[in-house]
């Protein structure tokens, strides 16, 4: 059903741009505080609006809700078409949840004072928020593509202007890799839109269900597979799926704290979200055919990412590689192609955003105090900063997948889905579950070296305690970690009917994935 006035989705989407407009009229020299608080206020308002959206969301409807559609280029079937369903709602909320934290964390980031241009910085953050929300709510392929590309630009500058020593290399690399994928996706978008006569995804999917739109499929390299890969490779680079991850450590290590948080927290999920939103329903046969191969890559990523992470001596790099491992779980869950796997995958996107975002925040706070990311420069931090260390421990444990915290719920559901998937099964689950061991190995190494041991380095002895703003950044992360860990049911309820519909639709095209519950 289409709203007559402004849909809530449109409101959430454009609130950041409203804030951005206000920023334009503020003077950087004289009104820096106003700039900061306006940005934070905007992101908080967006978060509040997204919560209202969640509250008014009807869990029982599998299709899109709060839809808004205006013709954009009617002749060619391009329209401003936005809405949320169970697949995207939680990711929108993740975005609006992470952004205020990233913004608040920026207030105390020294590099901003050194490099200046703070107004531009906050404008980029709001622009980024707009683009990211746009990616998650767009239902038109062209609109989606525009948001996808636009989201690149602010991140490119965030890394390139406010990053660490090697920032330009990292920014360019980030741009190059993503662009490489985008080119392929662009071709696929044009082909799909051209042959379907519309760029509206729900209409394309309905057409596929009805048999009026057919992307011929015969094997791993037919038309449908080529289109599938066009989308998939773009998404895979973004995720990143092994072996396309080599831009990630650079981008993370060089980006300022907020950049890393947003990158890990939200941007990477655009890839995994894209797979669920576009690849699976539009190309079901190709998805099933490619699932085992992609799942193997995902499992390699889980183990490889963890193993490489273990060998890192730079805290940020360590966390960056852990993302490769964690997102391997997400991809694995998605390609289990059953309700448990996909829902676990979506929840794990949220969880990873919370925990890894949290880890980058923690690392950022350590960096502000010590101006180093070298593991060996720390030691005994637990004695110097007890409260901060306790919070860090919870975040580390959440990332490790300790039951009772959020990470476990996602991983458990994914692996449960994997073992019982008709496409994957026992050995995939077995190999991926080994990744759970690795997570403990690399994260505990980090925790031990940084936080435990004697406090024998003089530079570590007089670190300033947590500022209330830092506490305000960490507490919401902590609450989210525990909440999702103890009561994930509302999150699953939000996505259940949409995912179920997706699985049913795919099962109609590819009966082999249909499962009978034990």
């Amino acid at each position, binding site marked *: 059903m289409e709203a007559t006035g402004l849909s809530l989705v449109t409101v959430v989407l454009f609130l950041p741009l409203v804030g951005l407009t206000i920023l334009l009229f503020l003077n950087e020299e004289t009104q820096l505080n106003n700039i900061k608080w306006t940005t934070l206020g905007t992101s908080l308002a967006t978060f509040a609006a997204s919560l209202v959206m969640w509250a008014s969301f009807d869990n029982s409807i599998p299709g899109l809700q709060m839809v808004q559609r205006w013709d954009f280029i009617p*002749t060619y079937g391009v329209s401003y078409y936005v809405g949320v369903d169970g697949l995207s709602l939680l990711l929108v909320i993740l975005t609006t949840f992470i952004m205020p934290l990233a913004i608040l964390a920026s207030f105390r980031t020294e590099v901003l004072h050194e490099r200046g241009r703070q107004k531009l910085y906050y404008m980029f953050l709001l622009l980024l928020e707009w683009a990211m929300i746009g990616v998650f709510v767009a239902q038109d392929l*062209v609109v989606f593509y525009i948001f996808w*590309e*636009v989201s690149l630009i602010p991140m*490119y*500058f965030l890394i390139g*202007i406010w990053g660490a020593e090697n*920032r330009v290399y990292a920014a360019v690399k980030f*741009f*190059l890799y993503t*662009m490489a994928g*985008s*080119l392929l996706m*662009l071709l696929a*978008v044009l082909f799909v839109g051209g042959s379907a006569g519309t760029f509206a995804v729900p209409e394309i999917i309905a057409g596929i269900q009805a048999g009026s739109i057919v992307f011929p499929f015969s094997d791993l390299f037919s038309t449908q597979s080529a289109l599938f890969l066009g989308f998939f490779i773009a998404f895979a680079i973004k995720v990143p799926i092994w072996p396309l*991850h080599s831009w990630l450590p*650079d981008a993370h290590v060089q980006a300022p704290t907020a950049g890393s948080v947003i990158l890990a927290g939200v941007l990477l999920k655009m890839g995994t979200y894209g797979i669920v939103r576009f690849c699976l329903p539009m190309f079901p046969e190709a998805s099933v055919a490619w699932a085992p191969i992609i799942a193997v890559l995902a499992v390699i990523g889980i183990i*490889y990412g963890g193993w*490489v992470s*273990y*060998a*890192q001596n730079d805290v940020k790099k360590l966390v960056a590689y852990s993302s490769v491992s964690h997102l391997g779980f997400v991809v694995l869950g998605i390609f289990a192609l*059953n*309700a*448990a796997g996909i*829902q676990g995958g979506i929840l794990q996107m949220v969880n990873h955003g919370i925990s890894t975002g949290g880890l980058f925040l923690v690392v950022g706070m350590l960096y502000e105090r010590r101006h180093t990311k070298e593991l060996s420069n720390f030691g005994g931090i637990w*004695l110097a900063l007890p409260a901060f260390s306790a919070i860090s421990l919870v975040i580390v*444990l959440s990332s490790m997948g*300790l*039951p*009772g915290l959020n990470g476990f*719920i996602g991983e*458990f*559901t994914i*692996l*449960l*889905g994997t*073992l*019982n998937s008709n*496409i994957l*099964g*026992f050995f995939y689950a*077995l190999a991926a*579950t080994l990744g*759970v*061991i690795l997570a*403990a*190995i690399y994260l*505990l*190494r980090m925790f*031990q070296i940084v936080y*435990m041991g*004697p406090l024998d380095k003089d530079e570590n002895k007089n670190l300033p305690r947590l500022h209330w703003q830092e506490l305000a950044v960490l507490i919401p992360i902590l609450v989210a970690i525990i909440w999702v860990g*103890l*009561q994930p*049911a509302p999150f699953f*309820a939000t996505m*259940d009917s949409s995912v*179920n519909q997706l699985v049913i639709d795919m099962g109609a095209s590819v009966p082999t994935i249909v499962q009978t519950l*034990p």
Partner: protein
Amino acid sequence: MESYALLAPLVILFPAIGAFINLFFGARMTERWVAGVAIGAAVLSFLVTVLLFSGLSANPGGVIVNPPFFDGWLTIPSAGIDFSWQLRVDTLSVAMLLFITGVGSLIHIYAVGYMHGDPRFHRFFTYLNMFLAFMVVLVTGNNFLMMFVGWEGVGLCSFLLIGFWFDRTRGVGWRNSNAARKAMIVNRIGDFGLLMAMFMIFGTFGTLDYFTPGEIANVELVEEHAAEEHGEEAPGAAGTEGEGEGEGEGAAGEGTIVLVQGEGEAGGEGAEGEGEEGEGGHGHEESAVVYTNNDHIPTEFLGVFGQTERMLEEGHEVQWGPVRLPIQDALILITLFIVIGVTGKSAQIPLLVWLPDAMAGPTPVSALIHAATMVTAGVYLMVRSNVFFYEAELTSFIVTLIGVGTALVGGFIALGQWDIKRVLAYSTVSQLGFMVAAVGIGAYSAAMFHLITHAFFKALLFLGSGSVIHAMEHGHAHGAHHNGHADDHADAHADQDAHTDHADDEDFDPQDMRNMGGLRARMPITYWTYIFGTLALAGIFPFAGFWSKDEILADSWIAGLTAGGLTSLGGFIALVGLLIAAGFTAFYMWRQIIMVFHGQPRTDAARNAPESVRTMTYPLIVLAACSLLIGFINVPDIFLFNSIFIPHELTHWLENSVLHAHAAEFQLLIAMLALGLAVGAIVLASRIYGERPLIEGEGAEEGTLQDPLVEIPRVGRPWGLAHARLYIDEIYYRLVERPFNVTARFLADVIDWQFLHDYFHDVVIVRGFNGIGQLLARPVDLGIIDGAVNGVGVVARWLGGLLKPIQTGYVRTYAITLLLGVVIVIIVLLLPLIQNGG
């Protein structure tokens, strides 16, 4: 309505609240208050458990409690997943709870004296309370997932407490935190198995619940009772059908209790034909016998164990994704993976390496977590899953081998240790092997019996060793004073209470038994309680260990004679292996007694060691009494004892929830043999060590004290092996740790950085892009988009200007790619126009 069961969540809640109070306010409270809160929480938890126990005595069938505010958990309707926070109060979980909270409370009290003066006193008690809460979750959870929350939670507390003194200088802090990390990682390897097992269990049964509210845990027992009751009062069976509406409404909702049996609400949800199953026993509140079984409940509404029985009858075939296999094979796989988890948590071969290192934690922790409670979780889990293990003969055989092997290895290594706590640690490993072996031969009740008795006497021994260590530290400080190091005294004394850094004084190790001797006179209470613990552990009549160890041996013998097949073989292996291990046990314990308490003091520290304070000795006395008496909860049916005690009481208690629990008939011959061996070993030890507990080393060991065993031909070399701990750590380092590290380096440096990050990037990505970029940037006629590109160029220049101050040598690449990006956006918008000729 069994209202007592509503209290069950409190057993978790009290310690959880205690932990929270100490976590947030402990730093600002005095030691007295911190300790008061923590002990109060533990004791309250124990009292509630006692209430549960008495409630359950009246109606031993067990209940399932949905805690208020926590009725759901992981629910995914379309995937058929519905795991909730449910507490299972039955005879097995309450038996565990009783000693967990009971011994736990005593150790809390003891720790007040032991940890006195530690700057992180409140942290210690926070963790201790947290541990109790998780341990209770572990044993009361009604599904594998909730059990797993406790399982990992206690692992976390173990990590925190092993590494509690992570801040010690001179490498000790790193050693402690290494031990903590090792414990957590090794346990994670076990958890991997447990996770896989859970995935398979869900794939098989569609649930992880042990039991459902309407279900009766032990059908066989109920049938047996029904038969008995039938004989006595025939009409009873019909019951009072009239009231049996039992719609099973009780299953859902906050704070409701669902009776497994008993009054009107039984029946259970989804049960068909409620009317006729007869909610009998209504008129006999005290009898608690229900004349029914689970036949009326459809398979999908049963818990995993009920379903197992049903599936075995039906010859069900299991499907996990693409895999199909018969239920028997599925059970073997499931149990094998459970065993991986068990070997981790209960320190069995091959994952036993973490437990000895875990002694780096404060001694009360060793007593509570690494002896009495947490490490027995694996045994609890197998007993809980006895239905699986009973049906998986192959797994059971492997479990027997693991248990016997571990009992022997642990006992053997304990012979060659100098560290008072390390001896006990390996002894714990060995005793856990006894329990695991018992599960392997199907003696579930005997395993539980030994688990419970062991909890008491091993906690006693650890606390006793803690008392000794504490005294040695004091004695050392005192001795330093006497020897004229007056200026050291103030420091040393201030340090001792806080157990600061043993390594601060590298010459002296208060845990090394070579430094002790003659403590009997100085510490009479510790000595006598230690003797009690030793006799119990050695299995001397009539101490607790005698009864429980004998039950395992008797069961092995019976299994060997009667079971047939692999189980028979397992029975004989267990009998022989465990008898030898029992001999080791008595020997190394008596060696310890002599080295620590008898003879002459060998250092000033030992000469000056004072008896510990009352908060420490009183728990010792209580535990010593328990070590003597606790065995009588399950005495065999033999002359004299059967008239004083109820024979096999524990077994009968457990029978209500453990389907395959059974009592072993007393085997006099075996008992005499075991007792003879133990006494013989003690006599032998006192002859060897009694004359001269230590000898001067020769050759390379010149100047050090050596064990007299090295002098005895053909014993010296094996003793060296035991002393070197069979090189297990070295083997692990060579085979696992080093290859893992080398591979990690290689992957990170060569594969990831040199190849993927640099080479692949430079050669494929950058060159490819520059090629395309130049192609597009060439002044070819792009027709209508020319103007657009120009416009874009302006924008790009503006954006590029922003970057100017920070540009390096990447200008060209960057400019081209940026242009490219924007061009693509424009193309998307304009391509349709081009296609249609403008």
